[in-house]
């Protein structure tokens, strides 16, 4: 912290501030659009209303609840699957472990649409799985698991878990006691960071959902499915943005020409 700050500092603040504006302004805009009576005519001409928010809440409360539930289920799965495997990776420096790590991270590297399509091709025909909400859950877990593993693993490596565990062993701690009293408490910051990331991504990750969902919906075999509730929210947003003229009644067709499904 130098006491005197020159032009460089001012330029830095200005640049960073501009980036922040770039990131925040659209958020502000969308909030504004959300409470504008008629977006086409502008907020000043048409006034402010909570009618849209109400309608969204009214129509999609169920959807919102479902996404929250899905995010929590995703979190539970990534905790159960991710924390143990992160620990195994932290403890094992071998080549096999590196290979497993590589495989675990791959879902991030491979675009969601490819993974989504692959999932449908592999599991789409298996019973009612494809139309079940767990199908989307699988997608979310697949995509968020690497983040949980990474966050947890990073902290486990940073706190030098192997030495702490050796210390615990020297004091008589067996495997389970160690896991409970040393591994989990010391990895907690990483697990927490991973959890936040998983929930955020799961709530935000429509890609995976919509890829899988849309593909299923437009399945040439024509089998629509009801698991696409999340997707409805997507349509709604796209639709809201391109609302034709003064129409205030619930629109029948989305801008993308996809018939809104799922009347709750």
């Amino acid at each position, binding site marked *: 912290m130098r006491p005197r700050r020159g032009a460089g500092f001012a330029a830095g603040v200005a640049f960073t501030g501009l980036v922040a504006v770039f990131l925040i302004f659209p958020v502000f805009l969308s909030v504004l659009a959300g409470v504008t009576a008629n977006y086409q005519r502008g907020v000043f001409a048409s006034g402010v209303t909570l009618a849209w928010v109400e309608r969204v809440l009214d129509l999609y409360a169920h959807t919102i609840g479902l996404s929250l539930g899905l995010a929590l289920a995703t979190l539970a799965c990534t905790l159960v699957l991710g924390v143990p495997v992160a620990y195994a990776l932290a403890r094992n420096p071998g080549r096999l472990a590196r290979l497993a790590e590589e495989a675990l991270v791959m879902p991030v590297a491979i675009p969601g649409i490819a993974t989504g399509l692959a999932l449908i091709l592999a599991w789409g025909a298996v019973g009612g799985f494809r139309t079940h909400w767990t199908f989307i859950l699988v997608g979310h877990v697949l995509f968020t698991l690497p983040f949980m593993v990474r966050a947890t693993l990073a902290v486990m490596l940073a706190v030098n878990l192997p*030495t702490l565990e050796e210390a615990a062993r*020297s*004091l008589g701690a*067996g495997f389970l006691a160690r896991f409970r009293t040393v591994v989990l408490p010391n990895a907690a910051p990483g697990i927490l960071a991973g959890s936040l990331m998983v929930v955020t991504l799961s709530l935000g990750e429509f890609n995976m959902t919509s890829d899988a969902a849309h593909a299923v919906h437009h399945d040439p075999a024509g089998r629509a499915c009801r698991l696409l509730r999340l997707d409805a929210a997507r349509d709604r947003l796209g639709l809201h943005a391109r609302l034709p003229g003064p129409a205030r009644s619930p629109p029948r067709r989305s801008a993308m020409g996809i018939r809104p499904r799922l009347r709750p």
Partner: protein
Amino acid sequence: MSVAVDLRACGFTHADGTRALLPTDLAIRAGETLAVLGPSGCGKTTLLRLIAGLAFPDPPGRVLFDGRDVTRLPIERRNVGMVFQSYALFPNLDVAGNVGYGLRLRNVPRAEREERVARWLAMMRIPELAHRRVDQLSGGQRQRVALARALAVEPGLLLLDEPLTALDAKLREELRVEVSALLRELRITAVFVTHDQAEAMALGDRVAVMRAGRIEQVGTAEEIYHRPATRFVAEFVGTLNVLAGTVQDGALHLPGGTLPANGLAPGPAVAACRPEQLRLDPEGTLSGRVTAAFFLGDRVRVVIEGAAAGPITLETTGAGPRPGDIVRLSAAPPAPWRLPGP
């Protein structure tokens, strides 16, 4: 309470095939403190881990505690206390939590646990730190907590991996005295690994000097210092003056004069002496030129060239010579002594 440790043909090979320890026999008596001394990579930490049960010897090596075979017993069932180089204090627990951890695992009732933790903290003279977080402790305090934690479970054997290395010089000396007193008082068998020869000689009842996966010599500090078994031990422990010359007519002939042969066999000879075995002596038969003189407070360390093939070092009290002076030296028996082969 304290156990005797017996290693029989214990070697250790890493998964990648490198030999960390050649098959080694070592007997540690109950209640003694053994210092394992050697340069980094000599296998001393591996030796400690084999005793601890953090690593297992290659067959057919065996580890015995009081004659009982514990070779396959993992560390958590060997009842050893261990102090790690990094201390490895649990960051999620406070000081009392760390010290009481082993007691908690042993289901010691809460009241008794607290009492014993308090006793150990008092013994380590850190009672006021009980509820401090470990990341708020200084190096010396961490060291004390680590010791208290290892001792609180009343192990039969205390293992210390470079316990004082991470501390600054003054603190290190203070703790060296304290740990030494503690080990004597507890009469617990202790093995500690160090690369610091002063530490090894101060703390160890016996010292094991290691090199390249092998124990070169085990003995008291005096034996190691004055009767080194190999040239490596002679050079690694203390400062060594190498006196290579020829023995003829009862004298060792060196480039700068002679020293009494002191029983060395006639012919070419490689002898040696320690700095304190030489003294400045106007009547001396060996002479050389002073190239450096270091004032160390209580003594002066003088480096002399021209007397032997290489530089030799001696220590003197009072006003020392200055660089450039030509001085004469003599040796006090038993120096010079024969330097053993490598």
